[in-house]
């Protein structure tokens, strides 16, 4: 049985989804363009940039965990 989502969480989730989408979009473009160009400098640039995008993604993930943790505390 699915647990209904707290409506107060919806805008936070929507925001978190948006914040996930941004670095994922740049990550995907970086890697595809690096692969398309194929030279060593482009590949290195893609990988270096991908690490920065991953940091942003991890930060958003942490924020989402905090939101869920806070929501769980609130329902106890």
């Amino acid at each position, binding site marked *: 049985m699915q647990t209904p989502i707290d409506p107060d969480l919806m805008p936070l989730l929507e925001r978190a989804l948006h914040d*996930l*989408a941004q670095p994922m*979009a740049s*990550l995907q*473009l*970086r890697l*595809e363009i690096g692969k*398309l160009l194929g030279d060593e400098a482009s590949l290195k640039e893609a990988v270096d940039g991908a690490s*920065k*995008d991953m940091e942003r993604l991890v930060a958003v993930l942490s924020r989402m965990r905090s939101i869920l943790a806070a929501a769980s505390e609130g329902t106890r």
Partner: protein
Amino acid sequence: MKVLVVEDDRALGVFLQKALKLEGHETSWVEDGEAALEHVRRDSPDLVLLDLGLPRRDGVEVLEELRTLSTETAVLVLTGRSNVEERVRCLNLGADDCLLKPFSFHELAARCRAILRRHQPARSAFLRFGELEMDLIRRKVQRKGQTIDLTPKEYALLECLLQRRGTCCSREELLREVWHTSADAATNVVDVYINYLRKKITAAAQTATCHANLIETVRGSGYRLHAEPLTSEQPKCYENFALAPCA
């Protein structure tokens, strides 16, 4: 084509520009809605890639106002917002298409081409030179009906030469326009790619004829498409030719 990227995320803005340049477009980038409208008034881009979550003015507001300024400018909305209603609203307000983030470079490029294909008049869609035909919208090159398979860089190089046929393009100019690299860079990449192009164009010939002069080396200057192209009916000469770099 002139494309304006409206995106407040810096990393994404940089890579959207890169992606569009790889497709051969002239690109500009602004980070908020007000700057976007100012740019459209001043520059009349062919296509706007519009993020919705913008500072100063929301992307939906920008779209509404953009449509009062111009119906000629195509708009592709890029959004990380997942609700269908918002994408439907954008399309009803006059966006040509919507793309949900994250997306593939290949899909972005294909959607841009599809939008521009609908917006461009047919008469500007082709560049022709002798037996060569370049379809600018579909990005295909043919010689006497036979498709020549070119990499993006080879295509961009040939387009540059075709746009200026009869006029010499310097190596520096080609480096700048095709590779977006400073002319100071010590590289023979232009010579290498000219050689690739010559081989592919020759290979597409149905009879063995000399095409050494189709892309002519202009000593001390650069390269140009020969003003009077040789056709398959002209006499056979050297099949193997050495690429002579400019002095």
